[in-house]
């Protein structure tokens, strides 16, 4: 929890700093928008954390997010009789959404089985999945866009609970994140399954020799990862409305970055659900902060000027933050092990010297 706590403090400081520079940061519209963005990332960052804690990786989730949205748009998007290629078939959302989620789950199952039954490397299998599924999405949308049109799904992204009608305080994606976090947190921290996830990441051989069904547990983590990506895909589809082949590109990397920022170790065996959420918050707050940050000052002539960050710096800043976070973490590790070494040396000195030359 050390890492989670540190990152939580960093998050709070970041928030306070941004609020100080621009009070609109905590304004109602920005907060609603920001929490929606956090929630949509957090949902699949939690899912991929299961995989990463076992020591695996899932690169396919960005493509799964895209594909779920495309499937929903294809099946349940509004039907335009004069231009059928621009919209969907117009089936009920009660068909489109479950089919999309089922496809996501099956993709996870297939990748998990390939990895565990054939002993393939997760990186390669999910890289293949990432490219293949992206191609499937492209084929379905035919290079253009599929419009969801006027279907009630849009309400999922824009609506919410509490607040006044039309002006919700808590967007639905946040509610979904809450549910995913509760279920995910229960699974990871309070069930035998979760214990096995950690054991596999901590020492795979020990897990094997303890009679743990390692392959089944690992396969399930890929299903969980893909399913949460599917759920996030539904939210993104609702949010964007127009599904193109671009949706979800590189999202797996955001999820990995969020998880790692929140203390999920790529070495396996370490990480928490709350950490993945904190990491997602940091990613999105930085993203949002680059827009919100302003510095009001007076130039030499005394005129009032406002300094803002260039949007193009987003990736530079996020990349730098990730590097700084892992460097700080490593430094903390080294300092701690030095302290242990020193303590051991002191203990050794305390024992009386015998027969020493």
């Amino acid at each position, binding site marked *: 929890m050390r890492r989670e706590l540190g990152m939580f403090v960093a998050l709070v400081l970041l928030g306070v700093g941004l609020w100080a520079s621009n009070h609109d940061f905590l304004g109602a519209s920005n907060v609603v928008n920001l929490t929606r963005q956090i929630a949509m990332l957090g949902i699949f960052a939690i899912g991929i954390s299961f995989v990463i804690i076992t020591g695996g990786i899932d690169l396919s989730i960005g493509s799964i997010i895209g594909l779920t949205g495309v499937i929903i748009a294809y099946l349940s998007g509004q039907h335009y009789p004069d231009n059928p290629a621009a919209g969907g078939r117009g089936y009920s959302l009660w068909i489109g959404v479950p089919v999309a989620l089922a496809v996501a789950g099956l993709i996870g199952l297939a990748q998990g089985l390939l990895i565990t039954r054939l002993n393939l490397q997760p990186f390669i299998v999910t890289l293949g999945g990432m490219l293949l599924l992206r191609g499937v999405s492209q084929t379905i949308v035919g290079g253009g866009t599929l419009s969801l049109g006027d279907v009630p799904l849009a309400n999922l992204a824009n609506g919410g609970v509490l607040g006044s009608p039309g002006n919700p305080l808590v967007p639905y994606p946040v509610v979904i994140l809450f549910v995913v976090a509760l279920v995910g947190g229960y*699974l990871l*921290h*309070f*069930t*035998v*399954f*979760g*214990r*096995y996830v*950690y*054991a596999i*990441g*901590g*020492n795979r*051989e*020990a*897990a*094997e*020799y*303890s*009679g*743990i*069904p390692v392959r*089944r*547990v690992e396969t*399930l983590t890929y299903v969980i990862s893909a399913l949460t990506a599917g759920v996030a895909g539904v939210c993104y589809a609702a949010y964007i409305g127009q599904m193109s082949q671009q949706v979800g590109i590189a999202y797996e990397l955001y999820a990995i970055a969020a998880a790692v920022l929140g203390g999920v170790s790529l070495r396996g*065996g*370490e990480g928490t659900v709350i950490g993945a959420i904190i990491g997602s918050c940091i990613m999105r707050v930085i993203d949002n902060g680059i827009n919100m940050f302003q510095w009001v000052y007076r130039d030499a002539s005394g005129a009032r000027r406002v300094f803002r960050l260039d949007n193009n710096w987003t990736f530079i800043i996020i990349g730098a933050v990730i590097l700084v976070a892992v460097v700080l973490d490593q430094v903390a590790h080294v300092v701690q092990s030095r302290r242990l*070494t020193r303590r*051991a*040396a002191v203990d*050794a*000195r305390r*024992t009386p*010297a*015998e*027969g*020493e*030359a």
Partner: protein
Amino acid sequence: MRGITKRFPGVVALQDVSLHLSRGEVLALAGENGAGKSTLMKVLGGAYPPDAGEIHVDGAPVRLSNVRDARRAGIALIHQELMLAPNLDVAGNIFLGNEGASALWGPLRRSRMRERAAPLLARVGLAHPPQTPLSGLTVAERQMVEIAKALSQQARIIVMDEPTSSLTGGESERLFQIIHQLRAEGLGIVYISHRMEEVLALADRVMVLRDGRHAGGLDRAEATHERIVALMVGRELQSHYFPERPSAPTGDVVLSVDGLLVAGAPAPVSFEVRRGEILGFAGLVGSGRTELMEAVFGARPALGGSMRVEGRVFRPQHPRDAIREGVYLAPEDRKRHGLVLPMSVAANVSLPGLRRYARFGFLDRRRERKVAAAEVARFKVKTPSLERPVVNLSGGNQQKVVLGKWLALAPRVLILDEPTRGIDVGAKAEIYRHMAELAAQGLAILMISSEMEEVLGMSDRVVVMHERRVRGIVPRAGLTAERVAALMTGQAEAAAV
């Protein structure tokens, strides 16, 4: 266990082996590396289902086709590399795979596991609370966690593979007490070890495997060191197992180490080694010998002191600096630090001096092969070709490749960390002969060894370390097992330098 056979592609690892273990008995399993001890253990543990033969527990036939079967039959394995998860706590490790839930989705009952762990920990004499993270425990304490885990599964048979290989003397004693206690409680114990003293001290019976076959069994009364070794190697040990060495060399000092302070060590270390001398380093595992050598080799920072090579100041910051001065290290874990396993014999031999074989940055493969061929011939490495990846060679031949890799560079000082670890008896004698030859040619050798015989048989002088201090430097005259053992276990003795 009767008529067990296990085949792997290309080899028969076990051929018609039978084993009988009674309640309250300690059966020691001895054999050289590759004799089939570990395979037999894995068959018992359900990891390798046998190709033929049958296994009975308490008279009832059992099929062990996976780890869970073995656990149900009351068999628990304690591997040499402990099978624990360092990121879980003690209780979590004890009940790993046995959490008492019927389904994967069942709740993890931490408090109940802790309650149940407490009496088990008391039985193995571990004072830590069950919620201690495993990473905070010493190797010996972790081993007790493994035993507690076996007990938690109501194991009636515990198989231990080289359990003392990383324990200190005192910790081993503690383990033996526990083994005696378990035997008194009626458990059957299979104890795999190649440390004869332990086998003789613990075992009610000794069973020896050789080349995957049952080579013989000895009762406690008839078991002696010589008889077990004779069964292991299938012949009496030759009397010149260790080569004859000339009396202590008096050549120039090649390497002198003065007050070297290694990070983590409580006191500085000084010693010197002459041309043609083999300087042994005795001590228990963890006594600081490897760390000291890594500092000499520049792989670990030195906090103080000075070193000289042939009189010149030597201050290695990196192994490159040491290699430039002709100081080479053949590490203990040769598979991890000594060799690039998937690369060929030739590429491994040429690796440290690769620049010499390059012309304008292009590798001169003919020269590389010539040098490698010379080393392969010098050490009689058994390999079908220079292109064979070293991963396919036996331990002894791998070690020869490591030696060849450094010898190709004309060393001054060669540091050998456990030069014969994991090597069978025949290949050991060869390594010893090569060491003696190299010393005779004027090379200074620093040899870390945890095998008393090797230390006594090969060294001109022996530096004995205990808890990261030098406890004494014993010359060949007056070098006895008792004296070295006393120093390395920290027993007081007047300084002998």
